[in-house]
């Protein structure tokens, strides 16, 4: 082996030793940082932390099985909020599509009503939460209604934005070939608005979750809001963190499902 060859081999070696692709290294780094943080939290929680404020991850995991999942009332509350999110989300999609298509159909509708929709979207709806409770009571109806009021706006906005991007030539040619309103919606608007629609559906899920959780936390006499209040007021962080983790996991799973759907339905465009 000549000196030049050895040099080249030595230069190649590190790359060969690392062996991981860029994407794997990114993911690996992410997991290492995550594990490091978890470990630091565990050590901090076991030693220095005030046990009335912070519980180590092991304590949270223990509380998850011994207190949260073992208590059928809490499990029922979690399933109840899951059901509320689903119902609110489906209703948001139906309402959002109907209103979005109605407003976005004509130039006139878009120009006159879209700014109104945007204005309503900009209002911090949380100030209406006490009003929702006054009207719908403290049961699931209130949480579903509040979830819809949050989830419907991003869907409307993105449906309208998607319709605006459709090439007017397609609409004119469909009209000249005698396409009905249903034909136009089915064959022109829907296929072209898919990316924008799915952005709306993704944001709609995030907002529906936000609305339902806000209403759940506000109604502190029952459901999840009751339990978070109890744990926070009795300075019992382990079950509180476990409950929050379960709900966050629910949110993550629902968000990923929407994202999987988005990828599946937008694939044909690439």
């Amino acid at each position, binding site marked *: 082996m000549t000196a030049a060859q050895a040099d080249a081999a030595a230069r190649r070696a590190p790359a060969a030793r690392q062996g991981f692709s*860029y994407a794997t*290294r*990114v993911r690996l*780094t*992410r997991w290492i*940082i995550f594990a490091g943080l978890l470990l630091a939290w565990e050590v901090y929680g076991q030693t220095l932390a005030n046990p009335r*404020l912070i519980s180590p991850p092991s304590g949270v995991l223990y509380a998850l099985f011994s207190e949260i999942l073992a208590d059928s009332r809490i499990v029922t509350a979690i399933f109840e909020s899951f059901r509320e999110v689903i119902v609110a989300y489906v209703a948001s999609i139906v309402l959002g599509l109907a209103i979005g298509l109605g407003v976005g159909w004509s130039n006139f509708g878009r*120009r*006159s*009503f879209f*700014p*109104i929709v945007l*204005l309503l979207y*900009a*209002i*911090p*709806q*949380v*100030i*209406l*939460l*006490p*009003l929702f*409770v*006054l*009207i719908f009571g403290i049961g699931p109806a209130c949480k579903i209604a509040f979830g819809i009021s949050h989830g419907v706006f991003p869907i409307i906005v993105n449906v309208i934005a998607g319709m605006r991007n459709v090439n007017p030539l397609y609409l004119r040619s469909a009209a000249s070939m005698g396409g009905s309103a249903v034909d136009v919606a089915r064959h022109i608007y829907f296929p072209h608005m898919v990316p924008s629609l799915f952005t709306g559906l*993704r944001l709609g*899920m*995030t907002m529906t*979750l*936000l609305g339902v*959780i*806000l209403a759940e*936390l*506000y109604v502190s006499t029952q459901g999840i809001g009751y339990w*978070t*209040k109890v*744990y*926070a007021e009795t*300075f019992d*962080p382990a079950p*509180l*963190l476990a409950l*929050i983790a379960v*709900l*966050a996991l629910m*949110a*993550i799973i629902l*968000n990923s499902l929407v994202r999987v759907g988005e990828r599946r339905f937008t694939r044909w465009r690439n």
Partner: protein
Amino acid sequence: MSDASTFTTRSIQIAFVAIMIGVWYGVTTTGSVTPLFLPPIDAVKSAFVRLVQTGQFWSAVRVTLTTIAQAWLIAVVMGILVAYLVTRSKFLVAVFEPVIASTFAIPLTLLFPLFILFFGIGPNSKVAYAATYGFFPVALNTIAGLSSVNEHYLRAARSMGASGFDTFRHVLFPAAFPVILTGLRVSFFISFASVLGGETLSSAAGIGKNIALAAELMEPARMYAWIVFVICTTVTLNFVVSAFENRRREY
């Protein structure tokens, strides 16, 4: 957009508001809606006047505004700082950007009980909650802005001997500024809504607390006075911000 169509659009919007007020007036005077859900406009007006006269109004507004200002400031500083550190390398952006983005998709309201546990029901828990929520749009937009700065500018700055801070101050920040500005705007409105939300959920003072309290005490007129006030404030703020942005875009 031509002047004529702007005029038409504006008229329709004004008509919309007028119709809403008309409907409100109509259903409350004919009594088709119970005053508990929708009190008459006059009652709301006099409730608002009473609020201002008793001084409750200004003390609540002051608490809420201070909380929003603190939360937003923290969100902006932390967001830009984190984004600056993350954009030091493409690898770090690839590691952290998706994590920050997908965390923002979780309803962070879930953390609110934790903040109550840590900071109590005073304004500090609202500051922490709103700052956490407001951090994300600043960080995400600043990362997007900083990592899309043209590579040539950076290389030119470096070749002319600019230090790290010089590059940030004179090249990176100005180039990314429009995108960062969007982040700041979104963050402000999120902080605004989060503070009001936090106050509504659990608080000792502020506008949100007053709305929740009025609802609990079955005083809809007072509740609506606050709601109308917040809505008018938001709409005005939105107009001001979008006018400002349009002006900037014309430059």
